[in-house]
């Protein structure tokens, strides 16, 4: 699948053979966990417990424990939903679109980022359900032949969300799993303990590595990639409709779908860098996740950051150009009103900070990459905060204006969702090969033998 160009910088360190690749990656889940894993998992798990406590309290008391009030009826839950769904998009872009475009550098980070996508979807899909108020009736959103003879409101973007997210989750899961099958077979063959042998064996679905297996595997993988590719664009477009279809100034804008998609990939790659930088250090994977990978990710950050900034500019421009009193006031209030610090912070973090990536030196400077990624992640959360809260808190009727205050439980739920994400991620790193062994062996083979394929 990989077709390295002669002029391309190496995406794997020279000197690796089939056995050494399998050893370097496959031994991680089979040997003792490093101390940093234990610490990280403990923190993630503690936050997950915080989420569970928050959710139990939410279910017993109701959404009144949050700061949501009319007119700001969408608070942290919706912000977190958009935030997490966005994070997932980097994984789909790397695994589907970069695969179809023959970008060999995607190979070593695709498995990990696909897992990140899945766990981000898991964290994201919690929030609309928690926000429902009567979460036990969530299945009303699914069109099924109900005894009340009524269907969901198909004209509502919230129902489109259900389709977009379930499609996204299903396809991401299947794609990730199919990619895992050959590696699970390698793990089955390497595992020493009977229980591990059986567990990996069951999940490997009887993979023997025959030529027919490989042929079908590759066909299925490319077909799934082609199916997943449109999702990179469609899922966050649908999420943006939640806002754009409403007539609230600051939401009702045609720029929203492309602007949301770029923002999703932007925040997703920031998360990829935040995760990959410590992981390649702790697990000694610098041979597979090279500086070239960081460099490319930084370029994507720069490009998507500029698209997002264009979105900010266009919002401001059209607020003025529309000559609409409410639209203009919304923009003025955004920049100079009560929530102005958030707005200027997002401009600084999402527009200014990534500009350092024009320079190759900073694209390969790990502390800068890490710091900018953190700023971008924070900036993208601020962006969603501004879109959701600032647009709502002052709309048409001054009599309905109201300030939004996040409560203690808003914060615990948000932090708790990070707990869910990181717990799943740590479990994944512990139990499964986090880099595709099969694809890395292929890549190492090409690296040794030259570009025949």
């Amino acid at each position: 699948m990989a077709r390295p160009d002669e002029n391309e910088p190496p995406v794997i360190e020279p000197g690796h053979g089939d056995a050494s690749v399998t050893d370097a990656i496959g031994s991680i889940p089979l040997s003792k966990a490093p101390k940093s894993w234990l610490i990280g998992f403990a923190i993630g798990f503690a936050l997950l417990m915080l989420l569970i406590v928050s959710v139990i309290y939410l279910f017993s008391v109701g959404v009144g424990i949050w700061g949501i009030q009319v007119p700001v009826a969408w608070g942290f839950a919706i912000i977190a939903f958009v935030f997490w769904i966005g994070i997932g998009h980097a994984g789909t872009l790397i695994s589907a679109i970069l695969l179809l475009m023959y970008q060999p550098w995607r190979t070593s980070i695709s498995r990990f980022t696909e897992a990140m996508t899945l766990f981000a979807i898991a964290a994201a899909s919690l929030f609309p359900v928690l926000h429902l108020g009567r979460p036990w009736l969530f299945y009303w959103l699914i069109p099924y032949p109900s005894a009340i003879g009524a269907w969901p409101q198909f004209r509502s973007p919230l129902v489109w969300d259900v389709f977009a997210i379930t499609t996204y989750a299903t396809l991401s899961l299947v794609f990730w799993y199919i990619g895992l099958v050959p590696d699970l077979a390698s793990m089955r063959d390497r595992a020493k303990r009977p229980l591990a042998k059986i567990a990996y064996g069951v999940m490997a679905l009887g993979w023997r590595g025959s030529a027919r297996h490989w042929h079908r595997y590759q066909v299925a993988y490319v077909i799934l990639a082609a199916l997943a590719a449109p999702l990179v664009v469609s899922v966050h477009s649908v999420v943006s409709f939640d806002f754009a279809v409403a007539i609230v100034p600051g939401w009702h804008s045609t720029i929203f779908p492309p602007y949301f998609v770029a923002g999703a990939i932007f925040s997703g790659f920031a998360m990829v860098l935040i995760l990959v930088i410590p992981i390649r250090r702790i697990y000694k994977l610098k041979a597979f996740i090279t500086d070239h990978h960081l460099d490319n990710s930084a370029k994507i950050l720069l490009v998507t950051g500029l698209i997002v900034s264009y979105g900010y500019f266009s919002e401001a421009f059209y607020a003025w150009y529309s000559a609409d009193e409410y639209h203009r006031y919304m923009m003025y209030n955004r920049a100079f009103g009560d929530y102005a610090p958030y707005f200027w912070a997002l401009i600084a973090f999402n527009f200014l900070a990534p500009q350092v990536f024009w320079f190759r030196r900073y694209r390969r400077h790990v502390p800068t990459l890490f710091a900018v990624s953190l700023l971008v992640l924070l900036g993208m959360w601020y962006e969603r905060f501004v879109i959701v809260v600032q647009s709502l808190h002052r709309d048409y009727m001054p009599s309905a204006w109201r300030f939004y205050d996040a409560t203690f439980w808003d914060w615990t739920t948000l932090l708790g969702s990070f707990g869910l994400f990181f717990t799943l991620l740590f479990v994944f790193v512990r139990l499964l090969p986090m880099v595709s062994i099969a694809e890395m062996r292929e890549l190492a083979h090409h690296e040794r033998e030259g570009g025949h394929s």
Partner: protein
Amino acid sequence: MADERQHRQVFHPSMNAISRFSIALAVMVVAALLAGLYFYVRSPYATGQNIVVDQPVAFSHRHHVSQLGIDCRYCHTSVEESAFAGIPATEVCMGCHSHVWTDAEELEPVRESYRTGEPITWRRVHNLAGFAYFDHSVHVNKGVACTECHGEIHRMPLVWQAESLLMPWCLDCHREPEGRLRPREDVFETEWTPDEDPRELGRRLVDEYDIEARTDCSTCHR
């Protein structure tokens, strides 16, 4: 020897068949669960349809309506004016039963209620959910007969719920009321057949009584 053990197959060849069978079984179990749920919510067990409800007094509509010919409104007095059709007070029963069947064993709870002033606790048969607003008077006045919803109540010794009361059942009529309507004066008739094509009559009545097919959510969920 150790090497040999290490390279032994993890699974017996029969696992191929077993795993295929389990996948098929898992799909079927999920399908069966969903189908079970589908039929359960529509079953009389869940809706109460066709299930006789025991009452403190074994009052027979068949005897009082069909055999004695008492009009519905004799007991359900408010059906034409209010949302609630009305459950007769003990005094209504005693109007006759202080003269007939005065010593009947079955009527002891009625007499006791009359003596003590404690109403008889009839058990509700048609129990609509609290979020569904229903008004008897508008239906009766627009030509929907009692039997249209309550079934052949004049043939029931003890009353049961003749229909499912599920929302699609309400909607069937609300979408297309023609064919289910009668002239106002025939609403309380138990044995009634139209003289003409019921749809023809229905269309005329829809026009005459100014009936609209109301299917807005807020018609019933207010």
